[in-house]
């Protein structure tokens, strides 16, 4: 069963690029990689999802190497409002085989002025 490991915390300054890496050595062929952001007293919010290579949207990029055993969430030019906990998720819908989601324990990002 896939297990996801991510750093407990990271500090950054406003305007910097932040890269958070998640390790998932036992990722299965069907698994997708997703990142969520969570603020205190709120539910997680979807940031980005990918299967392989690079995915980019208006808020972040996701880099996935060929072996898919890790992934890196890249946040360009962070601001104070990006201070939050970021979760890596590995999982898939397996049809009759069910639904699987393995969340990491989260990375607490603190952005300083």
């Amino acid at each position, binding site marked *: 069963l896939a297990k996801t490991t991510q750093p407990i915390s990271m500090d950054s300054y406003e305007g910097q690029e932040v890269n958070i890496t998640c390790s998932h050595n036992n990722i299965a062929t069907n698994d997708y990689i997703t990142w969520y952001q969570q603020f205190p007293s709120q*539910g*997680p919010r979807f940031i980005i*999802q990918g299967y392989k290579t690079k995915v980019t949207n208006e808020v972040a990029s996701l880099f996935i190497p060929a072996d898919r055993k890790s992934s890196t969430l890249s946040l360009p030019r962070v601001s104070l409002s990006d201070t939050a906990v970021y979760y890596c998720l590995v999982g898939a819908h397996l049809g009759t085989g069910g*639904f699987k989601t393995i969340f990491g324990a989260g990375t607490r990002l603190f952005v300083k002025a």
Partner: protein
Amino acid sequence: NAGVTQTPKFRVLKTGQSMTLLCAQDMNHEYMYWYRQDPGMGLRLIHYSVGEGTTAKGEVPDGYNVSRLKKQNFLLGLESAAPSQTSVYFCASSYDAGLSTGELFFGEGSRLTVL
């Protein structure tokens, strides 16, 4: 458009009591999920549903039951609460995204304390 709404937001129970958490979504999503979040452990899937009238076990289903009688509602029940069930519970919903987990839309959470 409220998204995913959970009630109640806070509840304190005594060991052995029962209760039901209600989740409602207004996005016409097929899939709904219940997670629990504990410090240092991320979110763990309790039960999920892929459509009205269907339910399935997730990673940590013991001590919980669920029902999905209407497409927009997903109920999580604790028949005999235990202190180990003290947690923050999150409901989520998603559209059918094929093989991927899709985008999960989460509610704001329900904090449950069992004494």
